[in-house]
């Protein structure tokens, strides 16, 4: 994949209300309400005290009908848009073709607990409504860690996988709430663990957040997040 620490195309600092969100997106042109200085992306980013995963590879949005019922979302996620969409570990800058349109994977860092997909797409000049986003990241664990849970929030519906196993599905028109969808207990393997999600937005704002909880429902720490080859 593209070496992340060589990327210096930062783009967004978004002011949404009084909330200040800073997000760096690799390799994309800026179309931001507010430009920002460089926020470099380096390998092996550890989660903060709150445990949120702040580094992702995100595919430019795919147009869908934006319906958010359980069955609509499941049908939208089940559809194959590009080869190996449920197993691929993309590189920054990789491209796929969906319905004749070429879409690019972007490595993204955020300083906030959440990843603002609206501004991600807006900054790329892409649609923000009636769209599906694919996102992937690699969680590197120093040891096998059983009994943890993936805990996510998303605007709007989303489906999540850990190491190719579906672990969460939340549906309907909803806002991002920390620890909204929580998986059953699962095991993170020693080394890389692939976390993948599909997020569908009907209209308006769209974002997501994700972290792991330990056996006592506290934020899991002690791991790093990468989106480069070392994470495979």
């Amino acid at each position: 994949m593209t070496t992340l620490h060589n990327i210096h195309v930062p783009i967004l600092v978004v002011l949404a209300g009084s909330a200040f969100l800073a997000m760096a997106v690799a390799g994309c042109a800026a179309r931001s309400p507010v430009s920002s200085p460089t926020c470099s992306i380096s390998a092996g980013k550890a989660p903060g005290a709150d445990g949120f995963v702040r580094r992702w590879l995100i595919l430019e949005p795919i147009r869908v009908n934006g319906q958010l019922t359980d069955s609509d979302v499941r049908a939208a996620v089940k559809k194959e848009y590009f080869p190996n969409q449920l197993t691929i570990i993309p590189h920054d800058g990789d491209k796929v073709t969906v319905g004749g349109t070429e879409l690019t994977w972007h490595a993204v860092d955020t300083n906030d607990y959440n990843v603002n997909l609206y501004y991600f797409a807006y900054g790329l000049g892409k649609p923000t409504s009636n769209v599906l986003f694919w996102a992937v990241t690699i969680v590197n664990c120093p040891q096998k860690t059983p009994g943890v849970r993936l805990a996510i929030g998303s605007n709007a519906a989303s489906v999540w996988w850990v190491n190719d196993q579906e672990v969460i599905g939340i549906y309907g028109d909803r806002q991002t709430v920390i620890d909204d969808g929580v998986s059953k207990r699962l095991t993170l393997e020693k080394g890389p663990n692939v976390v993948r999600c599909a997020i569908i937005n009907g209209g308006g704002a769209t974002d997501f957040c994700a972290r792991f909880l330990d056996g006592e429902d506290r934020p899991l720490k002690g791991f790093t997040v990468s989106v480069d080859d070392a994470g495979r």
Partner: protein
Amino acid sequence: MNPIHPAESLLFVRLIMLLMGSVALWVSPVFALDGQVQIHDPSTIMQCNGKFYTYGTGGSSLVSDDGWTWHRGVTPARRGMAPDIIHLGDRYYLYVAANIGGQPRAAVNMISSKTLDPNSPDYKWEEGGIVASSNGVEFCNAIDPGLFLDPADGKLWLVYGSYFGYLRLVQLDPKTGKRVDPNDKPVDIAINCEASILIYRDGWYYLLATHGSCCRGADSGYNIRVGRARKVTGPFLDHTGLDMLLGGGKLFVGSGGRVIGPGHFGLLDLGDGVQKYSCHFEADLDRGGASVVDIRPLLWKDGWPVAGDNFKEGVYAVESVRTGTALELAVEGVPVGGRRSRGARGATPGGPGAGGSGRGMFGGQGGVIPPQDVAEVSKTWPAGNVGIRMSNYLCQAQQMWDVTPVANAGGYPGAPYFKIAIAGTDRTLAVGEDGELVAVPAFTGGHEQLWRLDQLADGTWRIMPKFAPTARESLTLSAVGSSFATLAKFDPASDKQRWLFKTP
């Protein structure tokens, strides 16, 4: 004012009450204790080697394996009126009162044993002597003992008295159960009541005493009242500031429903902040008017104890205190009244732009929208096990839980185990083999499908399975996320395991 009865008369009346109860046609009630529960003036309920015991007037006793189903126990070594019991060190101390001649000449005797289990080789009551008395002239009738071990300083106290004059307080030795100094002058702490006991919480001492008339079946005016003080010796004031020495007392619990005349409060502290209280009702109308023991939740509000109610069966939305979302079957919901798209804003009901219906975007569909037909909407639900999740309450069928007691499945102090199923179906909340929640397609009575419902001090509920396959400890329904519930160890300091049962 209550008349003073000759001692024999009062004892006779209380014994008659017991006999009436024992021969009455017993109809199993749904929400009172199960089994043989007839007793008058029950002591504080005591746990010993996993069993629950209580002792009443006339040598009566009851024992239970689970606090729900009771049966007759063994008469202790000393009979009398209205005993109370406390566990100190390695012994159980039972205090039993008796009138000596005519009221108000009376005495409280103490006996003790290492165990309450008559089958144990350690079961042997030893006499401990008189710890309090009244001489028949003084303004006190030394019956109805109540024991209190002060958690603040470890001191042991005995409060006693019955209508004739004062309730009095004397200090006992927690190592022996006897008076610290028999010559100490008792402290007067209340007047014109009986069946009293002290409890402590957050720097306050609470005196719970019974007002009204006893022993008249369904015509008994018995009711439990409370005052509080910063010192164990009082003054105990009620919520209006009236001293219990002047007749004050905030109502804790009176007659209600089909049970008449509660008296003889006893604290049953189950740990983890779960408290219950025991009492007798002078007359249970569903048990032929017999006097029966009951166990109910003890709640707290604004620094005062509040009598909770045991769970009442019905159909409820089960809402997490932490998240405000409701427990539901993980199936695609159907909006009540049918699905509608989100139209453009601006039109008002019946206003401009209302369209052909005249109702507009916010005018609804007219008429009364009936409750969702679960038989209809469930046609698309998967067969077999279905996951459990939480969502915003939308009055939909997969959010309606029918909570019903299960007969002959045992229980816990105060209540039976419950089945929790989607109303109109047999899809039952259960613990799956992976230790997570699941709805099984049909109720089989398995322990993983039985639920314990304890009301907590703030009035919310703790929901626990009788059995979880993977658990080594008791687990509680826990809102780990806004949209997901699991089972986890109970944390009294957290809202995760506090639930509301709301009537849809």
